[in-house]
């Protein structure tokens, strides 16, 4: 700006220019990289990103599948928009699909039939789109289960848990909107039901329905409106939230399962470049490829077979896409007496609870869970090492109970099909399912918790007494032992690397001093919950316990030693006679070896 700097010659000004010239030998790649970096300064970030470490585990691929299905959906969906006509306008079909010739229908339906029969390759795109939508939601849900059962929602990842739930909810709505677009008999029936749902909303129901449909059902507004929601509004929000989700994963760095060398302060795995790029990039193609194969071989949503939407027709056994099944099932189970007239108004709780309230309630409970658990444990630390599900028995049991409830609702959506297949009356099936919705979750809770605790006990046994070798050894005095092989430190670590929360104890005198405060009531609730969560817990084996186990086994081991001496080559472990005993001397034998190894 100013002319006040003549002290610097032009050369001096240029002096700094060349600092980021490509390194020798970097060639064309280096030249391009340098060109970009000089204009964006991204080399540092790029290097950081390419060196980023991701731990490897099959369960971490579930989120990836969801991500790739989303990409597939965006791609194929965009293709579909080129031929799909989002209009309820009337037309008479004149395409190459004979059975529909001359039939009156909406342009939306006609164009979807055209995509299926007259646009070359249109059907494969449509089928990939629909299969990917189904896969998308399966993957999100399984991914969510993984996150829940491993405790990956704990601090600092609560925000991502909420974002994930929102994504799932939006995906359900997005799927329903897409399913409704072709305006075939099934999707029209679905929309009709959706209108019934809206009508059940207290006070505002009919207003909401008339707003959404631009008047009475079905009207002509809903298809174009759903189209905008389906291809613009929701995808934009979903992509935005998904981006935030991924950025947070980068910021937090991925969680990892407990294992030797893995701590709360590190992340162990493979670097982005090249391993993860190859694995994850390759996996995208695998997901896409499998979706394309399935789409080519298995027909989904053959709308041409259903015919156009006719309000007076319906097909028997009409069912929504699988992900809406649970809400449909809830509707089938809720008894009619939940609808009543009060104060001259109709309260349709038989519909409202299942169709409108259920999803938000379930999502609110799920969204609150991380905060509830954190409040109960009082744990304010960051957690990057995942829990093995068995090591959080109450959480795992609660999760399984919730899944069982969901499963009952889901199966209820097929109560008519079950009745036919099982030759039972639909009334009986429905009543059994109603009962199951109440009884099964507590039962599943109890069973899961027992299973977790016994798995934990088995882990303890393994650590304390080593692995059964299946080899029976006879001692000098004729007794039989099974040889046990102690765990090496790495294997053992996997089994002992967890903490069990202990139940809170009510602070001294909080009951007796007679001072009733809000805080005290809250504290009591917290104590009670904490008891429910952690009273019957099993803790990891401590070094002291291992030592004690060895100590108690000494006697048998001394006896066994005699046998061992005669087979020094094949017997490297120690012996196990009764239930608990292992020999101290041999238990330490492997440590000696290990030490000399280092």
């Amino acid at each position, binding site marked *: 700006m100013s002319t006040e700097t003549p002290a610097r010659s032009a050369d001096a000004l240029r002096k700094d220019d060349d600092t980021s010239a490509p390194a020798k030998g970097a060639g064309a790649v280096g030249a391009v990289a340098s060109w970009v970096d000089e204009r964006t300064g991204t080399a540092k970030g790029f290097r950081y990103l390419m060196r980023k470490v991701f731990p490897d585990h099959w369960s971490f691929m579930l989120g990836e599948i969801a991500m790739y299905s989303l990409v597939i959906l965006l791609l194929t969906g965009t293709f579909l928009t080129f031929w799909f006509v989002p209009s309820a306008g009337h037309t008479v079909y004149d395409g190459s699909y004979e059975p529909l010739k001359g039939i009156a229908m909406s342009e939306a339906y006609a164009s979807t039939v055209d995509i299926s029969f007259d646009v070359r390759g249109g059907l494969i795109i449509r089928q990939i789109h629909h299969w990917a939508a189904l896969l998308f939601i399966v993957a999100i849900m399984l991914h969510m289960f993984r996150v829940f059962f491993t405790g990956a929602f704990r601090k600092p990842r609560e925000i991502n848990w909420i974002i994930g739930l929102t994504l799932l909810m939006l995906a359900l709505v997005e799927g329903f909107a897409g399913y409704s677009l072709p305006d075939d008999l099934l999707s029209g029936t679905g929309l009709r039901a959706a209108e019934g749902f809206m009508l*059940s909303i207290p006070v505002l129901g009919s207003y909401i329905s008339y707003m959404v449909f631009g008047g009475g059902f079905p009207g002509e507004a809903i298809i174009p409106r759903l189209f905008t929601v389906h291809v613009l509004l929701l995808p934009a929000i979903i992509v935005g939230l998904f981006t935030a989700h991924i950025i947070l994963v980068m910021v937090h760095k991925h969680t990892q399962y407990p294992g030797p060398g893995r701590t709360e302060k590190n992340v162990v795995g493979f670097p982005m470049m090249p391993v993860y790029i190859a694995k994850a990039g390759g996996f995208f193609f695998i997901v896409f490829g499998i979706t394309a194969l399935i789409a*080519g071989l298995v027909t989904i949503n053959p709308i041409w077979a259903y015919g156009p939407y006719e309000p007076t027709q319906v097909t028997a056994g009409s069912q929504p896409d699988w992900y809406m099944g649970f809400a449909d099932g809830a509707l089938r189970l809720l008894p009619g007496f939940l609808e009543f007239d009060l104060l001259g108004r109709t309260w349709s709780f038989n519909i409202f609870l299942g169709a409108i309230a259920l999803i938000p309630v379930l999502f609110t409970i799920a969204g609150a869970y991380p905060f509830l658990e954190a409040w109960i444990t009082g744990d304010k630390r960051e957690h990057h090492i995942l829990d093995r599900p068995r090591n959080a028995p109450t959480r795992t049991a609660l999760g399984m109970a919730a899944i069982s409830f969901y499963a009952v609702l889901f199966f209820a959506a097929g109560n008519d099909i079950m009745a036919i297949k099982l030759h039972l009356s639909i009334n009986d099936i429905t009543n059994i399912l109603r009962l199951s919705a109440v009884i099964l979750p507590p039962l599943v809770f109890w069973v899961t918790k027992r299973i977790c605790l016994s798995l934990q006990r088995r882990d303890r046994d393994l650590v304390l007494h080593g692995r059964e070798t299946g080899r029976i050894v006879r001692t000098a005095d004729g007794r039989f032992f099974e040889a046990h092989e102690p765990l090496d430190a790495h294997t053992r670590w996997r089994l002992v690397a967890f903490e069990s929360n202990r139940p809170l104890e009510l602070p001294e005198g909080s009951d007796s001093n007679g001072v009733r405060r809000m805080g005290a009531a809250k504290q009591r609730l917290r104590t009670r919950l904490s008891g429910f969560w952690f009273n019957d817990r099993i803790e990891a084996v401590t070094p002291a316990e291992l030592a004690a186990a060895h100590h108690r086994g000494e006697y048998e081991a001394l006896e066994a030693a005699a046998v061992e001496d005669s087979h020094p080559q094949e017997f490297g472990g120690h012996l196990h006679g009764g239930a608990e005993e292992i020999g101290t001397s041999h238990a330490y034998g492997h440590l000696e070896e290990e030490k000399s190894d280092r």
Partner: protein
Amino acid sequence: MSEHDNLPERSSGSSPVDLSKGHVEGTGGLPARFENPGLPAHVHRHGDDDDAAARRSERQVAGLFVLSMLATVGFAVAYFAIDKNSTVTLPLVGVTNALHVALGVTLGLSLLGIGLGAVHWAKTLMSDEEIVEERHVLRSDDGARQGAIDVLTEGGESAQIRRRPLIVYTLGGALGLFAVPLGLQLVGSLGPLPKNDLSTTLWSTRIGQRDGKGGRKRKLMRDPEGTAIRLTDVTLGSVFHVLPEGINETEHPLNEKVKASVILVRLEESKIRSQRQRDWGIDGVVAYSKICTHVGCPVGLYEQQTHHLLCPCHQSTFDMTDDCKVIFGPAKRPLPQLKISVDTEGYLVADQGFAEPVGPSFWERG
């Protein structure tokens, strides 16, 4: 860190711990917990040491990539060569469109070739040595936090927020209200108010009616043929799907069908249990709304033996001999009856509209 350090001397003779008591913390110098043994040593794969194995992997990866290219070519060939109407019979799948299957399979293989090749490459040839990256606490340090607070307070002070409450309140008001016009436009223009639209059907108006007066009763017409029905056509056990006369001349035939669709049957009069039901029909011929009172599916399935109407959506079951009361399922209210009679020519006509709203319940129906 050797494991050895964590364990007592062998001869320490420390008093045995009762294992049945569960968790026991260390005494006698034992740490409370085991210590992390650290990363295990890297185990070499075949290809890491064996050059032949590595070359085999290389060939496999390249083979998969070649497969992908071939499949891509196949896709293009199929796209142009296969007639779009030709079919092919496949095991398990049955008869399908040949072009569709060919495109799906070639596309699938071309993608899988790339994917499997890349993953195989990563698994066999790329380093499988795990790398450790450090984590850092997310929380900013105290200085940075204070800095953020300072920026806020300084900014607020410079804007004189504290000293000028008037500005703060009016800004709050303006921001609070600015969304109202947008919301108003949306809510106000999305759709008309329902008024009594949900409570009326085409049956409640008459053909050729002017200003609510005159005209004649609407005939019951077969759906979809659109022909009128004589009383004598309705034999015992027959079922008619019915729409009101003139429905196709209305502004929104679909909207009218959604409300006005009716099911017509003849029952033995002796089987009809309610007098009202008998009175609103003729000679055992009765007409009921076909719209389920649950969430509005057409109640399409009629069981002749039991005289039950079944809704295929959620299996609500209505008993036609008992005023279409719900005998099973999630619906609450009976299907409304349409009062019918015979006109001078012998055709079935509706005397009046339904006495109550048809279809799903809504708040104002009372």
